[in-house]
């Protein structure tokens, strides 16, 4: 019989998931148990006496009931909107004393409930959305960490500047992204968003306000970067930025995913493009995006690399497909779907107001609006895998087979992530797969729900099947936000997880901060 160990309230007991514990067991989504509310009134009284505004009630809490994933549901006891580091510090100190869990939320774009509070306080970081200062000469920006990347881009553009890399999603917050990774179509050259952070202001779980960087309080910095909010709340960040440049986009079409990935990796290895990524439409219609913001690299691409790519241009591919389906008339539904996607989605990427002289302005706006319009819904089911370069094709093909089994239509989004040797300590127990050198590769598997009705179990089984590939191949999960707690030990092993758990216990004695995410 399964023995459930007694756990002291406010602490986390031994992990019941042994490395092989879940094999063969039919899995279902299980939300963490809701915190029991012990001591809540005294906690609230202390907070309010200290001038912190805390909202309670079904509406105030209900709006935070789920995240972008829409499969995990939980209610906080109360909500605090972050205003400044002092307020966050007071909140955490009080929470430690009263052993009240605090769940931090930025854009809330997690998909496994990591930014959902199962009781306790939900701290909404987007209240801290000011840009503190821009150093145009030194190419850095200091910003409050609740700011959305898009709002940061708006401010930077007034000085003709831009951030380096951020999720292709305008409403991810800076703090939430630095905590989980952040992949852009330029990550194969520039690394993930977390690599762009120079220093952070962090409120530790016990409420200290600490400035940290690789050279100042380096250990805290290394744990907070890519740390899933376990070791502190990021309240401000100094990031590298750059002059703004529009892009010239090229699209190549493939009928083989494998060939497209090989070409993507050739481009990345040879530093042959500024931006690159793969977006599939169907198994037999795969789009490799190649883009440039530097004329030299674009010229070099045309001189040396373009002819080596095995993909077709749009017209060439349309002709190929026409021939393909003419010989297979029974596949007319597939052809119709392809045509429909082309008609609906392609114009989004060519809207006149974002194009000048054949260059695309504000790619994140273009991509993000298209993503939300064509893939968005109340349930974003996007499990992902991150692997070293040499294992990537196998991981993607296996993941693609899982998609085929569970859904009629789906999209894969693949991108490279340049690794910085000097950032190795940041990568420990993170989305960066152990053992990756040079580049890691990420693939996101996104079913097209298309108004279909699927049970939560169906979604969850699908995600588990993808995550299982990661365990089997020794991979990681490139947003990692997509990784479920039950997988952590299986992926990283007991020794590493226990070491991090010991650090967590030391930093967060009452285990209150984002406690259901990792440990």
């Amino acid at each position, binding site marked *: 019989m399964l023995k459930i160990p007694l756990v002291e309230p406010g602490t986390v007991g031994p992990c019941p998931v042994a490395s092989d514990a879940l094999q063969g067991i039919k899995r279902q989504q299980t939300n963490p148990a809701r915190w029991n509310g012990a001591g809540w009134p005294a906690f609230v009284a202390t907070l309010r006496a200290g001038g912190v505004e805390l909202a309670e009630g079904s*509406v105030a809490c*209900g709006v935070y009931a789920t995240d972008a994933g829409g499969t995990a549901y939980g209610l906080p006891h109360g909500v605090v909107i972050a205003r400044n580091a002092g307020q966050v510090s007071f909140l955490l100190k009080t929470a430690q004393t009263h052993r009240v869990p605090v769940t931090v939320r930025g854009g809330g774009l997690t998909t496994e409930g990591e930014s959902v509070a199962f009781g306790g306080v939900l701290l909404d970081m987007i209240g801290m959305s000011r840009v503190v200062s821009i150093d145009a000469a030194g190419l850095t920006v200091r910003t409050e960490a609740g700011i959305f990347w*898009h709002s940061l881009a708006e401010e930077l*553009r007034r000085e003709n500047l831009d951030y380096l890399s951020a999720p292709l999603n305008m409403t991810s917050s800076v703090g939430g992204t630095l905590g989980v990774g952040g992949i852009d179509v330029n990550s194969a050259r520039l690394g993930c968003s977390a690599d762009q952070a120079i220093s952070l202001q962090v409120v530790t779980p016990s409420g200290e306000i600490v400035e940290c960087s690789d050279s100042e309080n380096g250990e805290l910095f290394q744990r907070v970067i890519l740390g899933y909010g376990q070791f502190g709340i990021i309240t401000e960040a100094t990031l590298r930025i750059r002059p703004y440049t529009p892009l010239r986009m090229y699209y190549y079409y493939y009928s083989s995913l494998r060939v497209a990935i090989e070409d993507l990796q050739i481009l990345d290895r040879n530093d042959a493009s500024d931006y690159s990524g793969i977006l599939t439409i169907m198994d037999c219609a795969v789009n490799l995006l190649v883009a440039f913001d530097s004329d030299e690299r674009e010229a070099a691409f045309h001189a040396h690399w373009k002819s080596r790519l095995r993909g077709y241009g749009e017209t060439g591919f349309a002709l190929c497909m026409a021939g393909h389906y003419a010989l297979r008339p029974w596949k007319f539904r597939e052809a119709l779907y392809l045509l429909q996607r082309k008609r609906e989605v392609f114009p989004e990427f060519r809207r006149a107001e974002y194009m000048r002289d054949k260059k695309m302005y504000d790619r994140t706006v273009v991509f993000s*609006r298209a993503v939300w319009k064509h893939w*968005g819904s*109340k349930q974003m089911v996007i499990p992902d895998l991150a692997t070293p370069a040499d294992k990537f094709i196998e991981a993607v093909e296996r993941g693609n087979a899982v998609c085929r089994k569970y859904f009629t239509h789906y999209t894969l989004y693949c991108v490279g992530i340049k690794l910085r040797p000097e950032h190795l300590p940041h990568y420990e127990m993170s989305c960066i797969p152990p053992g990756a050198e040079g580049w890691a590769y990420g693939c996101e598997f996104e079913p097209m729900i298309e108004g279909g009705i699927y049970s939560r179990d169906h979604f969850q089984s699908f995600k588990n099947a993808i995550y299982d590939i990661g365990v089997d191949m020794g991979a990681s999960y490139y947003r990692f936000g997509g990784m479920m707690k039950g997988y952590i030990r299986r992926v990283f092993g007991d020794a590493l997880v226990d070491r991090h758990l010991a650090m967590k216990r030391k930093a967060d004695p009452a285990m209150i901060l984002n406690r259901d995410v990792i440990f």
Partner: protein
Amino acid sequence: MPATLAKAPAAPRDFAACSGCSLCLLVCPMWRRHHDPRLTPEGMAKALQCGATAADLADPVETCSLCGACDPVCPERIDLSGMVMELRHQLAGALPPPGLPPMERPALFAELQARMQHEERPAGPSQVSLRSDTVFLPGPALRADPAFLERTVALLNLPVFADDGDDIALALELGADIPQTRLQSFVDSLRGHSIVAADGLLLRQLRRWLPGSKRMGLGAALCSRAAVRSNLAATDLYVIEPRACHADYERMVIYYNNLQIEIGCSLSLDLQRIAIPASAPGLRHRLGLAAADDDTQARWILRGRTPERIVVEDLADIAAFRRITDIPVVHLAELGGDPTMIRKTARAFN
């Protein structure tokens, strides 16, 4: 609002469809000013999903300026400004809780109701002989400045429609009831005409009430006159009236894009190509119950920009900019110096 005319086919989805993507929040002036997720269209939509009532949402509903910026960005095609108008309507009609005295309404409501019930509206002016004529609805702000109105009318070379629906526009703003007979007579009188309206909110509703009609905001109409357009300069900052722009966004975003390419001026658009309102007065401000709007919006439009001149479509924006800058601010109508150059052109109509 009478259901027959107010519920429009152009509003295909309601708050229940909100996925929480936050795209609407990025463009909302309430958000820019307060950085409070409750004071956003997303906050309202999600709260309604959780069972909030109009009374629970009184703060954001009254703070909203009905600029319409949130409508075109919503990937779920939720009619967000329509949602706020509906909530205002519910608030305006809300009964006090049992046992409490009747709620205090500003006298404006009663006056407006009386006007709409009793006032005999003049028919269109005699120049409007054909149903196909384009007519101009100037609205109260222009009417309050007869010289300016005369200049505008000369530039547009359009007849002023005597019933410009100012009471209906005000009722829309306040959430007051519009008697069915009043609305019907207004809409019927405009049927068949092409319409130029200075009030962006009225224009928004006319799209629903008169589907298929040709409508245009004052800014686009003036700008289609050569006398005006030829005086725009690449060094100008052109400030768009947001309501009219967002009410017909798909067409207007292309229109302004072309204007920018032609003139080279900068526009008051954000990176999502949404018109940034230069001021964002909420209901209380419009009712005179709150102090004037602050300068957050106008300052944000100007941040990092050093135009030689600011050209506005909306008269109210002149004051907003003059409060914060010495850069000359002019209305589009002031650009058309030489009335002999006025050419009648229907180019900007669809």
